[in-house]
């Protein structure tokens, strides 16, 4: 298909650490984020949220709220139900239960924090004043507060479903019993991850402006997926799609959280249409914890059988996700265990596999996508078990991995779960990581530190990662969907280049790196290219998620650029009396290959295309603006590894990450400086998930972590300096050989930390298989072991 086409380009700007053009405005207070937007007559929306995990709403009295001066409107569930049924989330997966999340709870609330009513007023403070005047009578219902209760099934978390199992799925069910019974060694673990929040420093927000005289709606929203949001607003609010524009301002971090359709986005569109004025919704930190999605809460019962050489014989994994009350859109509850188990073998060759993934509904905020999604949990479990197997065999963690990875001579290799490895540096990653760590010296330090009451540990994690996520990857992950991503490239009359993309940045540097790609695709300086994004007026795409921006950007921009580049070459060939195939564009000159003297400035040829009809060859299409769709023809697997060293204080149980090493192979790096920033940021979040962060619901389903005082994200004192080395295995499926890597560290670095803690405590016979690994968990693990 045309959309698989890989445009040719000559790397020049690609591969260099161009300083970011977005920085100047972001360093001077001139960035424009969603909360900075001001519109004439703008009103403010504030939600009243359920204080109960599961409760019938017997009555809502909004009279006093409505009467407060400054209040324009108060809505509760039935008011909105007339206008929108809510968010329908489905998956083409056998047995999957579709959910419909109402915009406002209507008759029943299914999690603490679910919106029950909304107030629109002249200021946010007044809207909050009014929200406190709303009287709601609830009848509490028993709540499903964990996966055990969900599976027991005595209580149904979401009464629109049949039971609590939203999905149960298995790709491989080999008979493993004889293998485990006869293998030289077996390691087993019961791994659990608590919920976390993506916790971007900028919370979610949106502003809607409906204009009745044109029937047009503009929705400004801090989203990673503007094209998607536009289509969904159209579908769920019954507004014709061509009359909707979604605009994306600067976004203060997304990490997956802003890659969902939020009920609030629908709500303010409906409110603006009702009131005929702009309506603004900017949530506070507490609402971000209460009403946005959480992530990573999976349990994995994993077992690994291996022979006396440490070669893996079989892997078993039973994975279960605490999915919350509804399916998020678009990822659904399959965003954790389901996609996680698809890649559970990772970089290793394992002949026999049995696995099952289950998603269950609970009375909590819906589980959602957060950097690394459901890949992290399995990576933590598997890598921890591999280290444990190595210790039992007296092998180094590097050596056992060398004996099991897909080796250079194995490529292409299709594993038991159907993933084909075509190119990558798995083995070289292990060697390089070992060289960086210098494990011999570390083991000495580790042994000496015990006397000082310090438990040192080294943890290793080797990963591969699906990137450039498109139709093929979605199908491989078992969540089939066709993706669509276009870019437009226009060569301007003066020879400058205007690129339009539907990729939305939330800090990862598209504005700079996509310009690097376009510049090389056309052979012009990067300073002559501008990237336009953040409006659905032109181009359509799914947006930025699943480490796809660089790949989808390179592919779509590459294709669009090649269309206009061919026209420039055609015209230049005519003027230079050469075949267009013999024309090259480089350094701003268009000339015959190998004969730079026989050439013209790029600007002159472009000028002729626009304004000199006499110069055009017969049948010439003078349009220097083209749009093209791109979708990779197969998986694009990046790879790498992480090693963490931790120090645990035997007296206080304090854990400190003292060293971090990363090897990354994302194919051709567009901008190494930005790649390293992505790795460092992901490692910080990994330290957060494994040692500090947990969104906690208590036994009653009450959310007890709604502030930064209870939910601790890493600071300058939690993240050490990080050593990074690069390998580059180009992808043949993407222009320039680019691969993705945005999520890499949040897939793999958490496993390195967990493995490091387990290595530190191994001499005590202690294992820890639950994150976050808090001082309390370490204390308990050591205590419980001494009691035995």
């Amino acid at each position, binding site marked *: 298909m045309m959309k698989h086409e890989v445009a040719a380009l000559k790397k020049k700007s690609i591969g260099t650490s161009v300083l970011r053009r977005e920085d100047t405005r972001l360093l001077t207070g001139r960035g424009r984020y969603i909360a900075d937007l001001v519109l004439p007559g703008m009103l403010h929306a504030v939600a009243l949220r359920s204080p109960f995990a599961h409760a019938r709403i017997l009555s809502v009295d909004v009279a006093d709220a409505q009467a407060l001066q400054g209040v324009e409107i108060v809505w509760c569930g039935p008011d909105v139900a007339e206008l929108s049924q809510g968010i329908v989330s489905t998956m083409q997966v056998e047995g999957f239960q579709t959910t419909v999340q109402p915009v406002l709870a209507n008759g029943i609330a299914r999690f603490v924090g679910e919106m029950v009513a909304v107030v629109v007023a002249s200021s946010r403070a007044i809207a909050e004043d009014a929200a406190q005047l709303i009287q709601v009578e609830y009848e509490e219902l028993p709540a499903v507060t964990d996966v055990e209760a969900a599976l027991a099934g005595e209580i149904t978390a979401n009464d629109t479903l049949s039971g609590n199992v939203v999905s149960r799925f298995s790709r491989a069910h080999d008979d493993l019993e004889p293998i485990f019974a006869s293998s030289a060694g077996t390691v087993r673990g019961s791994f659990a991850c608590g919920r976390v929040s993506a916790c971007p420093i900028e919370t979610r927000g949106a502003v809607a402006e409906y204009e009745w005289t044109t029937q047009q709606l503009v929705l400004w929203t801090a989203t990673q997926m503007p094209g998607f949001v536009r289509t969904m607003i159209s579908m769920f609010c019954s507004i014709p799609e061509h009359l909707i524009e979604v605009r994306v301002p600067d976004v203060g971090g997304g990490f997956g959280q802003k890659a969902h359709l939020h009920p609030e986005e629908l709500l303010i569109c409906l409110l603006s249409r009702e009131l005929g004025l702009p309506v603004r919704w900017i949530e506070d930190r507490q609402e971000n914890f209460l009403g946005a999605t959480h992530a990573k809460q999976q349990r994995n019962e994993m077992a690994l059988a291996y022979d006396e050489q440490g070669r893996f014989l079989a892997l078993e994994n039973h994975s279960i996700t605490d999915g919350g009350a509804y399916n998020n859109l678009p990822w659904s509850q399959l965003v954790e265990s389901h996609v996680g188990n698809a890649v559970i073998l990772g970089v290793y060759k394992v002949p026999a596999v049995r696995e099952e993934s289950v998603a269950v509904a609970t009375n909590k905020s819906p589980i959602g996508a957060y950097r690394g999604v459901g890949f992290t949990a399995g990576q933590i479990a598997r890598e921890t078990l591999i280290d444990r197997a190595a210790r039992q065999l007296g092998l180094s963690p590097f050596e056992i991995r060398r004996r099991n990875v897909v080796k250079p001579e194995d490529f292409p290799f299709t594993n038991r779960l159907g993933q084909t490895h075509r190119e990558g540096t798995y083995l070289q990653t292990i060697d390089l990581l070992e060289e960086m760590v210098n494990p011999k010296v570390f083991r000495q330090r580790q042994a000496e530190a015990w006397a000082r009451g310090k438990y040192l540990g080294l943890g290793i994690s080797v990963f591969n990662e699906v990137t450039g996520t498109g139709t093929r990857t979605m199908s491989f992950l078992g969540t089939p969907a066709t993706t669509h991503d276009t870019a437009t490239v226009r060569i301007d009359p003066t020879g400058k280049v205007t690129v339009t993309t539907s990729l939305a940045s939330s800090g990862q540097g598209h504005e700079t790196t996509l310009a690097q790609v376009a510049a090389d695709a056309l052979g012009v300086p990067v300073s002559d290219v501008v990237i336009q994004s953040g409006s659905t007026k032109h181009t359509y795409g799914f947006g930025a998620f699943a480490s796809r921006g660089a790949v989808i950007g390179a592919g779509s921009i590459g294709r669009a650029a090649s269309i206009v580049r061919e026209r420039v070459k055609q015209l230049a060939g005519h003027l230079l009396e050469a075949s267009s195939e013999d024309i090259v564009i480089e350094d701003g000159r268009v000339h015959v290959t190998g004969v730079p003297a026989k050439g013209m400035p790029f600007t002159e040829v472009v000028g002729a295309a626009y304004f000199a009809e006499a110069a055009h060859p017969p049948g010439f299409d003078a349009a220097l603006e083209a749009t093209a769709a791109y979708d990779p023809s197969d998986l694009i697997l990046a790879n790498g590894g992480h090693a963490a060293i931790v120090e645990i204080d035997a007296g206080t149980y304090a854990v400190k990450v003292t060293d971090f090493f990363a090897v990354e192979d994302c194919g051709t790096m567009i901008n190494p400086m930005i790649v390293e920033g992505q790795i460092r940021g992901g490692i910080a979040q990994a330290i957060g998930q494994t040692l500090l962060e947990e969104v906690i619901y208590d036994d009653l389903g009450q959310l007890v972590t709604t502030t930064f*005082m209870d939910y601790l994200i890493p600071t300058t004192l939690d993240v050490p300096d990080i050593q990074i080395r690069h390998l580059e295995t180009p992808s043949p499926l993407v222009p320039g050989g680019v691969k993705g890597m945005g999520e890499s560290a949040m897939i793999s670095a958490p496993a390195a930390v967990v493995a490091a803690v387990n290595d530190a405590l191994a001499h005590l016979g202690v294992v820890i298989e639950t994150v976050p690994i808090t001082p309390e968990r370490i204390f308990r693990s050591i205590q419980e072991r001494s009691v035995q």
Partner: protein
Amino acid sequence: MQAHEEGQLMRVSAIINGKPRVFHVEPRMHLADALREVVGLTGTKVGCEQGVCGSCTILIDGAPMRSCLTLAVQAEGCSIETVESHSQGEKLNTLQDSFRRHHALQCGFCTAGMLATARSILAENPAPSRDEVREVMSGNLCRCTGYENVIDAITDPAVVEAARRGEV
């Protein structure tokens, strides 16, 4: 002491980024909101409104303060510096430029607060050690960078030089 009735605006006069300004606010509005919504300087960011994230950090009479935990009316008679004051003409100052060269920002949401705290460190000590910088910056949360590049930017030789001249 002015008497105050609910809903009534109070007059505040303060020096903001070197200029005397007068603005009117309700007492219940914090300074971050006043700077953003009343004065119109949206460079100051709001990440938690509980004094933890540090995105709203500004300099009040030269000292870093949380503007979300300061009532706007408490700005009366103070000198306030926000991120909008740092650049010189249409050029980044040395510290801002160092942040750019070291890729010390991604989404940019924490940047204004980072710059405010960094400025206060450098005013006291033009050449702080990396450990000292990590210690003092520990009240500014960043979710994107992993912090190392921020430490690099603040300890850059050009920044040290500029700080010695009193120019950050």
